[in-house]
């Protein structure tokens, strides 16, 4: 079993200047108690990063 998470090479998850989702287990977003906050650009970048990573990993293993 291979789990592809969101490594610290995605620097955006170390952000402290704003509310930021993301965790080593994978991209996340913070919705806020009433759901009014939408995924930030930083969080979406994390999601793209992880999507890219799984495709690249699959390529390396099976390509």
């Amino acid at each position, binding site marked *: *079993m291979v789990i592809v998470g969101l490594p610290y090479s995605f620097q955006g998850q170390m952000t402290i200047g704003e509310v930021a989702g993301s965790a080593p*287990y994978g991209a996340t977003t913070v919705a806020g108690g009433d759901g009014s906050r939408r*995924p930030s650009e930083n969080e979406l970048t994390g*999601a793209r*990063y992880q*999507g890219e990573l799984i495709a690249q990993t*699959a*390529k390396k*293993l099976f390509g």
Partner: protein
Amino acid sequence: MNRIFGSRSAPWPDSTQTTQHTSNRGVFMPKVLVLYYSTYGHIETMAYAVAEGAKAAGAIVDVKRISETVPEEIARASHFKLDQAAPVATIDELAKRSLSAAERGLAVSLRRSPASSIRLVACGRREPCTARSAGPLPRAPPSTAARKRPCSRSSPTSCISGWSSWVSPTASRGR
């Protein structure tokens, strides 16, 4: 790849209909399924971002969602986002697909809350596989057939799939 991202009418065609794993130039293209559930649309947005990334890395991408199990009346009263363009994945299809992926694939999931999750399955399979289902799916149990089917992988080390832990909202916020 433009057939996936270039068309507004059908942005996410069903790649289970596609057997092609290589581009015209013979480059290997993994198949990635981004499977998600989203109540209010946050995770839906995240799922499409994941799909963009996978596509950028040269994958054939599908985005699908888990069916809503909350009664419609309650879902409407609670302002769920019910107009989500991604097709609903069926249990049979998931069983088949996750078995396919298990042969030569990977899985990833992202969970923001118990009710919202994304599951990714990347697949580069070339032969049929009857390995067992990759694990529990959010809000939808795997079919009995999939659970009972014996695992007959051609190579014991080639079944790759999985699912990450739930990330606590507190951990995300406590910065």
